[in-house]
């Protein structure tokens, strides 16, 4: 068994046994190779179902909102990106830090099942293991070793926080900060900015026309934690459900805007989109602008820092008076 999995199980078992926590949220394995899903454990005998592998991509911190209403103390396993989301929930006053025990896990990057399928490696695949920068695909007959870079989620390739930024206990040794091209962070945005207005408009129209309004992007988002979303509020007259281009544009602009300054760049919105819309490009744009106009801010890095939208400074640059179109 994997060393980290073992540590996770031992930790969970101990915490439940001695009553340190009432519930543990982690991941467990399903039937298919890519199926590692969140699990909620209250019984220490079931702690052995917990696992850690290259498909534990779900951020379990948002479940805390629901769970803390029923339990007084909950333990969660958080990866680097998850911990940013966790901090953001604290900033947003949605969870009580004192009621949570955080078990941090350094994450080398998660594997995108779609990339595995695109390479045709999923046929008869039994399991997938990772060692360092190599992924081992195991079928009943052969073992194949391939470079991890080709199979990680796009968002993981850009990851700047493999190590949890907040934790009570660490499950792993800290990983070395990965070499990430910082200029690549906003490359998607800059590519779009370089287009003409009409090209950009056509680009987004095409993207949004794929939207099926399933709300997965909203529901997975650790920053989308409103008690009642305006799009669920039938009285607010904004929840236009028709499949019309403008309704989809409206939904996505507002969704991105509502998490402005609070988006932790976990990239989950793009991952879960069943239609494959690159939704993170909206959030990245806002982050880029906020950084440019009001100074660097990284949401979720520090739970004591306020988000840049919702506060102001008297000497903020006045971007309107010079016809600046919002630029400095």
């Amino acid at each position, binding site marked *: 068994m994997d060393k980290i999995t073992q540590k996770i199980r031992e930790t969970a078992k101990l915490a439940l046994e001695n009553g340190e926590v009432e519930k543990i949220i982690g991941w467990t394995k399903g039937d298919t190779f890519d199926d590692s899903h969140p699990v909620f454990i209250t019984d220490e005998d079931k702690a052995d179902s917990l696992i850690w592998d290259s498909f534990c991509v779900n951020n379990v911190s948002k479940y805390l909102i629901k769970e803390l209403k029923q339990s007084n103390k909950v333990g969660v396993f958080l990866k680097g990106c998850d911990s940013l989301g966790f901090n953001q929930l604290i900033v947003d006053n949605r969870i009580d830090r004192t009621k949570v025990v955080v078990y941090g896990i350094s994450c080398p990057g998660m594997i995108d099942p779609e990339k595995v399928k695109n390479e045709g490696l999923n046929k008869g695949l039994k399991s997938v293991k990772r060692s360092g920068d190599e992924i081992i695909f195991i079928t009943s007959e052969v073992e194949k070793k391939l470079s991890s870079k080709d199979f990680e989620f796009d968002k993981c390739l850009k990851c700047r926080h493999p190590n949890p930024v907040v934790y009570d206990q660490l499950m792993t040794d800290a990983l070395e900060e990965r070499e990430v091209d910082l200029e690549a962070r906003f490359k998607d945005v800059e590519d779009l900015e370089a287009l003409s207005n009409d090209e950009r*408009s056509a680009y987004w129209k095409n993207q949004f026309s794929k939207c099926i309004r399933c709300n997965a992007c909203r529901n997975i988002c650790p920053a989308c934690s409103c008690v009642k979303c305006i799009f669920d509020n039938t009285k607010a007259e904004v929840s236009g459900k028709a499949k019309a281009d*403008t309704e989809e544009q409206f939904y996505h602009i507002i969704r991105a805007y509502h998490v402005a300054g609070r988006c932790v760049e976990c990239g989950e919105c793009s991952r879960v989109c069943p239609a494959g819309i690159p939704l993170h490009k909206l959030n990245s744009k*806002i982050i880029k602008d906020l950084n440019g106009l009001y100074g660097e801010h990284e949401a979720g890095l520090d739970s004591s820092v306020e988000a840049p939208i919702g506060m102001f400074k008297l000497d903020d640059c006045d971007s309107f008076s010079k016809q600046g179109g919002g630029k400095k």
Partner: protein
Amino acid sequence: MSIEDEKIEGIDKVKFEPLVVAFCCNWCSYAGADLAGTSRFSYPANVKIIRVPCSCRVSENFVLRAFQRGADAVVIAGCHPGDCHYTSGNYHTRRRFSILTNLLEYMGIEQERFKVDWISAAEGHKFASVMNDVLEKVHKLGPNGKLRDDRWIR
């Protein structure tokens, strides 16, 4: 320019009458519009003014809805920074709509179509000139088809 080019989505560009929606703060710009009227500064009737209690009352939903339902340009006018009736409302406006201005441009809306400006109750002249300026630019750009709801016929 061919005849096809002049007709954008059924709207004749030659006879094009732009629609500008202006959200005006009750305590300054709305009075500024009043002053513009009483001082007989002319600004076209295409500007539809919506009175709001403070420029920060304007939500990004309003702006998008206006574009959806036929606006060719949207203006938000509030008190000069430091003069807010509620102390700090327009500081929030400044941050929030800086971001929205950029985001709209990112979605392909020409930046001339969305404007935020500070107009006090004493600046009737400024109100007229801002509106004229926006209208002139919108005239050049033509009718707005982006973000427009197809089901909506003006």
